[in-house]
């Protein structure tokens, strides 16, 4: 899938002239011991003896085997060894320098979110947050961290958010989209309250294991169905956020939907509006059309960018959402990486280009106005 480019030549492409914001970079651990400086001996032993299972059956690995080892680009293995994404120096050379990334948002995966044991989940998330500071943001000032929270325990999550509320290295709160209950459920409101208070958007990355089948009709057979299905999961999560009234209750809350596509947003907005108009007696707590909440409170990262048969159709779809809604993202170092030099197939204005590649990100992420 990926074009292999020589890593040591940071070519400046047409797209990268403006300086790029990347809303989805995945730093990886070199090994499990990376977290040990911040993980109590008790939890180190616990993981050794019992593992850290979530709501799926494998001891190790995702429910559906990925298409590539670690879902990663074949060319993203650091020369010194280790998993793709585990070497800051190689990430700098292959990605940050080469693609002129001026602002990179770290979204650590496999970091304790969705782990069934609630205390272990909280301990792992906290270790992940400290590790981001120690190993990443303190070493490269282009990178910003996400507060990884054990979202099935919203009270512990809110405490974790408040712990980093004063630390400018953290610019968003990170959830995974496959929650155990729909994301707008009252159970999760302490997270939104703390995020709003800290001035951080809540990013919702695809994946996670809430234990529910990824379709309302049961478990599908294939990885491609799971990958495609993240878009439906995020649509369901957003529907819940809107209909439950989260945006009424927390008016300054911002959401960023990560790695689940964006072209579905206009259709979801139209459908919500149409049926809410018929059924509005059920939700008197909503004061505005559902589409208005989406239009003002929600952003979408672009990768994996929908590929349309004609560039006009992509442009028209983005026009329906607004050019101010999209945050460019690469998903480095994963296999379905989007290259900023090739991601936009059509001519757009300089203003749109700047918003798409950097301006929107600077407006959304806390303290990144530059």
């Amino acid at each position: 899938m990926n074009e292999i480019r020589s890593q040591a030549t940071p070519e400046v492409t047409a797209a990268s002239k403006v300086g790029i914001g990347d809303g989805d970079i995945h730093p990886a651990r070199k090994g499990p011991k990376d977290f040990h400086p911040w993980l109590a001996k008790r939890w180190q032993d616990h993981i050794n003896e019992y593992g850290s299972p979530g709501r799926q059956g494998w001891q190790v690995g995702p429910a559906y085997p990925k298409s590539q080892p670690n879902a990663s680009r074949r060319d993203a293995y650091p020369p010194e060894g280790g998993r793709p994404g585990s070497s800051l120096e190689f990430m700098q050379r292959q990605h940050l320098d080469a693609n002129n990334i001026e602002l990179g948002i770290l979204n650590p995966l496999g970091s304790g979110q969705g782990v069934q044991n609630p205390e272990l989940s909280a301990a792992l998330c906290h270790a992940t947050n400290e590790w981001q500071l120690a190993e990443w943001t303190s070493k490269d000032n282009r990178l910003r961290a996400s507060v990884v929270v054990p979202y099935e325990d919203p009270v512990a999550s809110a405490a974790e958010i408040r712990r980093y509320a004063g630390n400018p290295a953290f610019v968003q709160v990170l959830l995974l989209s496959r929650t155990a209950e729909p994301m707008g459920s009252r159970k999760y409101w302490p997270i939104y309250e703390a995020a709003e208070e800290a001035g951080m958007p809540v990013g919702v990355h695809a994946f996670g294991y809430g234990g529910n089948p990824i379709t309302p009709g049961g478990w599908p057979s294939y990885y491609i169905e799971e990958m495609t299905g993240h878009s439906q999961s995020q649509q369901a999560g957003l529907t819940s956020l809107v209909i439950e009234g989260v945006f009424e209750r927390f008016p300054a809350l911002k959401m960023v939907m990560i790695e689940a596509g964006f072209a579905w947003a206009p259709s979801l907005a139209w459908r919500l509006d149409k049926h809410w108009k018929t059924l509005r007696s059920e939700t008197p707590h909503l004061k505005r059309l559902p589409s208005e909440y989406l239009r003002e409170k929600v952003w979408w990262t672009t990768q994996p960018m929908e590929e349309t048969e004609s560039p006009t159709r992509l442009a028209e779809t983005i026009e329906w959402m607004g050019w101010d809604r999209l945050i460019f993202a690469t998903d480095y170092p994963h296999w379905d990486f989007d290259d900023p030099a090739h991601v936009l197939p059509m001519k757009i204005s300089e203003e749109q280009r700047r918003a798409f590649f950097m301006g929107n990100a600077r407006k959304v992420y806390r303290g990144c106005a530059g």
Partner: protein
Amino acid sequence: MTALPEGAIDCDIHPSVPSVQALMPYLEDHWREQVVMRGIDELNSISYPLNSPLTCRADWKPASGRPAADVATVARQALDPFRTSVAIANCLYGVQLLFSEDMGAAFARAVNDWMVKEWLDKEPRLRASIVVPTQNVEMAVDEINRCAADKRFVQVLLLVSGDTPLGRRHHWPIYAACEKHGLAVGIHAGSSYHNPPTPVGWPSYYTEDYVGQAQAFQTQLTSMICEGVFTKFPHLKVVLLESGFTWLPAHLWRLTKYWRGLRMEIPWVDRAPGDIVRSNVRFSLQPVDGPPDQESLLKLFDHMQSDELLLFSTDYPHHQFDGNAALPNGLSAELARKIAIDNPRATYARLMETVG
């Protein structure tokens, strides 16, 4: 409002079973006794709460009882005003929700026999879908074979959300039977509620459940394409009913991108998902979850890349539009004719056998 051509074929109307009493003459002795002994009052799914503003349009609501519960009312409200030549009755009685396979099969037989005697025999403009007990595929196939001799059954009716995704191979005998008999596969909004209605669990509000039907359809389209249903059954027609359709272009863009990257996992899918949809999958018109402006709707039709995908429907008695405005504004007369007449005829093989 775009004028509806005379003789339109309405591909989705919903006659109601007025009460379990109405089915009693069509249930076998054992099940009749079960109904009485166990106090089984009704099998109406939460998909359409009786008095919700969506379940029945205000001007179609009866003084008491369930809407669309007798043939004279349906003719007066759903057929005459639209000058409909043929309407396909999709009965949404909650047969698929039952956990017992045997009870599901018994109620499916009763609903289908009731449909023949109380509706098809009394109103020549009506056709119907065969309700099947999806709890057990062999029983579902038996019911298809039992009903298929009556050519007024033009389709087999499935709910979009059941126990397992509809592409899964154990469902394939249903599709083989449909292909053999020239029946379309109609997949309608609704759930057996054996899984949570969203991929992230049970929602708090009915609005979420109803809006979420579109996501359920997206996942089923993915399943049927990826499992290879259309490679195995190239002549099968699948009709998504009350699904919405404005989500289709974005869904196909995503699925096609992943198909390009991951087709090694499903090598039997030898055509792009969009090509498969254009040859084998159709969508009922209502609800039009469309953009508010006419110009955007026309752009969306361009994104769908075919004028053969939509089949006229009113979704009677559900409240999707007011008055007679069943077609959205701004359609050309040519497109209106295709949606109202040509596309349904091309989709339902049996319509051409039973309609002149």
